[in-house]
């Protein structure tokens, strides 16, 4: 039992369909991390960093370009997963994820999460559906961001011009 994690999870509307005993199981696997603003939550070189659930605050995805430059991409606000591609990653990613405000993150060890998936036990299925739904929401955010670059080409052009000048 992890009372702090359970308290955060119980307050998430999106997890309200999960029965208490299932929520307790999820909470028991979680480590609660308080992350101050400006801290890197996930580095692009992280592999198998686990499943990270942002329960308070905002995280921004940043891309390193040139020498010391950063391009700011999309922001995710709690509740949301953070950098879920790192969960099964075997190669470097493309973005770092940095806390834009003080954040609270629940992290689940990758192997623990995979074990629950493999077990496919009745007690964990609603919780897994919630996690996959959060993953889908995250994918939608990233896809909409990519499409937005093309839907507002003038703004993208401006950003690229600034980047060209900076580098």
């Amino acid at each position, binding site marked *: 039992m992890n009372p702090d994690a359970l308290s955060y999870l119980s307050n998430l509307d999106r997890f309200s369909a999960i029965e208490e005993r299932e929520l307790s199981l999820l909470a028991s696997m979680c480590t609660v991390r308080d992350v101050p603003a400006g801290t890197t939550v996930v580095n692009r070189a992280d592999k198998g960093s686990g499943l990270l659930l942002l329960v308070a605050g905002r995280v921004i995805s940043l891309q390193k370009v040139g020498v010391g430059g950063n391009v700011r991409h999309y922001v995710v606000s709690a509740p949301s997963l953070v950098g879920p591609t790192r969960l099964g990653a075997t190669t470097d990613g493309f973005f770092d994820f940095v806390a834009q405000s003080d954040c609270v993150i629940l992290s689940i060890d990758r192997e623990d999460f995979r074990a629950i998936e493999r077990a496919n036990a009745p007690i964990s299925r609603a919780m*897994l559906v919630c996690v996959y739904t959060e993953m889908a929401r995250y*994918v939608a955010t*990233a896809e909409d961001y990519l499409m937005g670059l093309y839907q507002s080409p003038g703004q993208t052009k401006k950003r*690229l011009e600034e980047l060209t000048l900076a580098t």
Partner: protein
Amino acid sequence: LCPEANAVAWGDGIVTLDKIDVGKLTEAVPLLAEVDEDGLSEVLEGGKLFKVPRGSHVYRVGDTCAGFYSLVSGIVHLHQIEAGGRMVLLRKIRAGQSFGATDFLCGAPHRMDAIMVADGLVFRFDAASIREKLSERSPNVMTVIRTLSRSLESNLQNVEERVAHIFSNPDASLAEFKDLAGLVSTVEELDES
């Protein structure tokens, strides 16, 4: 997979499962790969196989999400039309790949158009049936959703790579977006006139 006599046109109906070689369907739909043989009928009973001709939409932006799809044969493009009228391709779907799952899991209307660019067969996992079985905690449907989540991870990786590519080489990307920006302003000017 499906005798031609039993194949039906998109919108005209479905090919019922009793007319399908389930073994071949299972081979053609990787989402079913990890489902036990005993569980296949439960997963498939809510699904439908459609024959979709080239040029037809499987769904359009704003459509209610009827489920998620696995492409058995043919090619599907997922795209949006941008302000200048140009098609922006999000993803090219090939046989064996799934699509529409992000919107299904989010419970949202479709955010892209899905258009068939080569004649083919599409298997749809119907939303109502899948949701009902998930609420019953069906292990077989859960297995499908777990497999689906792997393709979501892969899709996300692909999107991040494309975004990163645009900004990692700004000089090259600038040319493309200058053209696009010019096209949009031209259209807006025409609209205003």
